[in-house]
């Protein structure tokens, strides 16, 4: 059977490369999620702060990076960033094109976009914390840092899990766009495999299935985390 041959792990098989590519997709998305979590926390804090300048800055961030196509951001960071690096190289006497590493550029681009969505998730989660619980923390003598660590952060995480699960799924699919930079992720590898074997239908279906496997598995992970985090809620809540 030729299908087993092209999909297998033998010399002519693409199986091994596809698995590696799926792991690459997972890696880019994970790094992007972490970058997004850091940016998202800062942007959410800015949007919730009393400082008007910070609030405006936060609003601009979420408006721009949710409003501009993902592909454009990726191009901007990869080619724009490479252009800047090349210019610096020329200044230092190096002639020729200098590229940003495609993994770093891709993870950064997807992370920046993910950060815009995560900021909204964290902001909503913060607002979901009952005001009285924050007041009780103040009243017992907790300083600002302690309140954040013991009362705010755990509850923000709890309320944010469903939203973060959503952002993860979006980022996983956005990461396919990183293939335009030549990174051998699942999208790019499926494309190359399809092109070189001329089995377009087969490889795009297989690529799609692998994406589905990744999203389905991670969805289960997030549902589990959500159930765990909701132990403290009334029973009607955890069933939802």
């Amino acid at each position, binding site marked *: 059977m030729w299908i087993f041959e092209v999909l297998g792990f033998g010399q002519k098989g693409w199986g091994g490369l596809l698995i590696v590519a799926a792991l690459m997709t997972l890696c880019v998305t994970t790094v992007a999620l972490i970058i997004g979590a850091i940016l998202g926390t800062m942007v959410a804090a800015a949007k919730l702060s009393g400082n008007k300048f910070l609030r405006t800055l936060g609003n601009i961030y979420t408006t721009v990076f949710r409003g501009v196509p993902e592909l454009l951001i990726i191009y901007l960071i990869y080619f724009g960033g490479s252009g800047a690096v090349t210019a610096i190289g020329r200044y230092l006497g190096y002639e020729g094109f200098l590229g940003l590493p495609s993994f770093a550029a891709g993870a950064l681009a997807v992370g920046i976009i993910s950060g815009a969505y995560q900021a909204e998730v964290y902001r909503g989660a913060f607002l979901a914390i009952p005001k009285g619980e924050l*007041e009780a923390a103040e009243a*017992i003598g907790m300083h600002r840092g302690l309140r954040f660590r013991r009362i705010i952060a755990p509850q923000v995480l709890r309320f944010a899990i469903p939203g973060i699960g959503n952002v993860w799924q979006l980022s996983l699919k956005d990461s396919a766009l990183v293939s335009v930079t030549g990174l051998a992720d699942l999208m790019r590898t499926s494309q190359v495999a399809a092109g070189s074997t001329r089995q377009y239908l087969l490889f795009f279906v297989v690529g799609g299935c692998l994406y589905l496997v990744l999203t389905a598995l991670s969805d289960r992970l997030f549902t589990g985390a959500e159930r765990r985090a909701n132990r403290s809620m009334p029973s009607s*809540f955890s069933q939802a």
Partner: protein
Amino acid sequence: MLQDQQIDNATATANRLSVRNIRKSFGELEVLRGISLEAHDGDVISILGSSGSGKSTFLRCINLLEIADEGEIWVDGEQIQMVKKQGKNIPVSSRQVDHIRAELGMVFQSFNLWSHMTILQNLIEGPVHVLKRPRAECIAEAEALLEKVGIAEKRHAYPAHLSGGQQQRAAIARSLAMKPKVMLFDEPTSALDPELVGEVLRVMRSLAEEGMTMLVVTHEMSFARNVSNRVIFMREGQIDSDGAPETMFSDAASPAFRQFIGSFRG
């Protein structure tokens, strides 16, 4: 003049709680118009008044959840340091504010237990993280407190799984775990179903009998009358009348207070 001030400060130092001429406005609205109060060790003071009279704001000013625009506050002999900024008081040191708050127990109308922690975790949170005391010791004390307020069997439950009365008793125990110098109660039974009010009042009563200094903003006339040793009636941001319950609930009371109680008897 200077001597008067010194004598004055001496009483403030001797008292558990001393509040001098507190004023607070929200925008144009002046909510507190010069309130003073001295609480001695073991005093149980009920603060009565119709809604909007400023009694909750007064209580919140004491532990600085609201910052009074003017006035002095002393807790157990220590004055809260303030500076004037654009004519309004601002605390000098947030560290002192936290330290004062840790000495004042606050019980809220809506309980405000931390919903992501079990009851036991709620109780040890302050002692372990604010007072930095050894965990094992705090757990032992917390369990004794839960026993005392009658919810020992709920120690590993989350607040959402408790009735309102149980939550409020847990909230009182959480405040007590900090070994406060003064307990402040902000309408502790107002959010409870009528049949659950009794269990919370019983806990408060036993606290009063143990000699805890308490300020209680309440609508429970029987508590004010039978448990407290002093009743303060607030009206339009000022203290209308102030006295022992025997005199306050007699014919000698001010007309405004008599009218206020009358509205309760229906």
